[in-house]
């Protein structure tokens, strides 16, 4: 019996959310008195795989099939199922990403397992139970769920666990082959287009997010958001009307109908704080609100606030941020 963690790569490196999942997985393994194995697919450097030892992973299984460079759910599922079988894995850990949750859900069916997505705690295994806490009601509550099947599948909410570091430990890397057939690639993407982040940071992975709302008046003023983001090493986001008006692309829209983020720091500039917006950001650790209206509802959800005109306040913040020693 072991714990199996699926890790996703990006540009040869392992995504931060997957490092969090690996840290989680090895803590679960410790709790259960076993070891944690990782399974990696696609384009990841071997050194990056071996370095998963830092997160407490002892062994990494790697399928280097070229066709897996793109995400193809059926093929990924087959590889992970093979790894799970080989390792007699009883606990499978994923990041709660679009890819991780998709393969996790399919594996729950294939392996007849219990699935919990959006998980924020390690399991409580008292008395033979396996209870994890997951975020529900769009950040307004948590639920404790007992995973009753023999196989337990967990998708860990991003930025809920620290990436652990284990003094230079390395994992052994072994090849894995799942004998994939052409049929497994029937739904392969025709085309994958990565956003041009201009060397910037991807929103779903970001630890700091600077976000702008309709209070910024127009796309021509977005340099305020971008410059502050750059000075802080942050990703940029926006409210729904801003993307509806095409001031910013849709993938930046956070909230109930956009993406959910849970960074360490969320800075909202000229956003009123409607409940649907809060649903996407309310699990951020620290929230800063900058708004010229002292009655803006967002202040109720904030840790720090400034009442003032963004066009005066933000340049001061940019200046102070640039002056920070890194």
């Amino acid at each position, binding site marked *: 019996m072991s714990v199996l963690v699926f890790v996703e790569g990006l540009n040869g490196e392992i995504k931060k959310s997957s490092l969090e999942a690996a840290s989680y997985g090895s803590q679960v393994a410790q709790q259960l008195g076993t070891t944690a194995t990782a399974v990696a697919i696609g384009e990841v450097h071997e050194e990056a795989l071996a370095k998963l030892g830092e997160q407490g992973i002892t062994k990494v299984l790697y399928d280097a099939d070229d066709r897996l460079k793109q995400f193809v*759910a059926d093929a990924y599922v087959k590889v992970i199922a093979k790894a799970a079988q080989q390792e007699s894995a009883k606990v499978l850990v994923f990041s709660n990403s679009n890819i991780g949750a998709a393969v996790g859900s399919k594996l729950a069916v294939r392996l007849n397992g*219990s699935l919990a997505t959006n998980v924020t705690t390690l399991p409580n295994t008292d008395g033979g139970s396996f209870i994890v806490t997951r975020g529900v009601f769009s950040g307004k509550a948590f639920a404790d769920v007992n995973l009753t099947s023999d196989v337990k599948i967990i998708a860990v909410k991003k930025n809920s666990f620290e990436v652990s570091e284990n003094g230079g430990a390395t994992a052994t890397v072994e090849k894995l082959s799942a004998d994939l057939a052409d049929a497994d690639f*029937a739904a392969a993407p*025709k085309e994958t287009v990565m956003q041009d982040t201009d060397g910037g940071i991807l929103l*779903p992975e970001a630890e700091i997010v600077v976000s702008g709302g309709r209070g910024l008046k127009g796309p021509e003023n977005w340099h305020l958001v971008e410059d502050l983001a750059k000075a802080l090493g942050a990703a940029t986001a926006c409210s729904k009307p801003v993307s509806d008006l095409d001031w910013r692309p849709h993938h930046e829209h956070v909230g109930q109908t956009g993406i959910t983020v849970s960074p360490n720091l969320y800075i909202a500039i000229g956003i009123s704080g409607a409940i649907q917006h809060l649903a996407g950001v309310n699990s951020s650790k620290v929230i800063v609100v900058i708004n010229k209206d002292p009655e803006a509802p967002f202040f109720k959800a904030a840790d*720090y*606030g400034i009442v003032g005109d963004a066009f005066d306040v933000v340049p001061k913040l940019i200046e102070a941020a640039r002056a*920070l020693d890194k």
Partner: protein
Amino acid sequence: MKILVCISNVPDTTSKINFTGDNKEFDKNGVQFVINPWDEYALTRAIELKEAKGGSVTVLNVGEADAEPNIRKALAIGADDAIRVNAHPKDAFFVAQQIAAVAKENNYDMILMGKESIDYNGFQVHNMVGEMLGIPSVTPAFKLDMVDDSTARLEREIEGGKEVVEVKLPFVASAQQPMSEPRIPNMRGIMTARTKPLAVREPVGAEAKAEYVGFSKPEKKGGVKMIDAENAGELIKLLRNEAKVL
């Protein structure tokens, strides 16, 4: 083209969330229920495809009778008929099994859902159904068009980019913005919805695999610390030295 749209009946986005019975059950008291917002994108896209290519749109809900007003609303928006699987769902696996059972009896060309329910935030039912039926599931998709009578072209979001996928019918997809512009039912729609068929069927035997044992709410924030706009730079120092997030 025969399209199945699965809709979930969820608390309105502005609802206060409370629990009863020793924090073991969601308190429906005073809560307004709506069609899950993401499911509306799926529903309107299905109706648009039907308007362009002909066929039918069936809506499906797994839930109790209190979901019927929103099922009728989906009919008023433009679905042709509805099915309600009469059950108190316990988890997503149970719901997926009910949807798969309905799908197996009817040859739907596509099964559309929302990306995620805004109550249990599972992001899983669509992929489970795809796996149960052995057909592709493309989630979350923000664009869906037909290439020809047997092939659809979808664009799905992945972290940091998008993928263009072409799949043969039948398939499952889940919708997110901006797949379509949700519609408000008009008077005629509301009138005709009353007489459109709504079949109620009993659930197939299926097990739940996740047992919800209790709920809790996040700790209240300690209150907001205000910084004078004149000294805005002070904020950056506080974020580093006090909040320790920089």
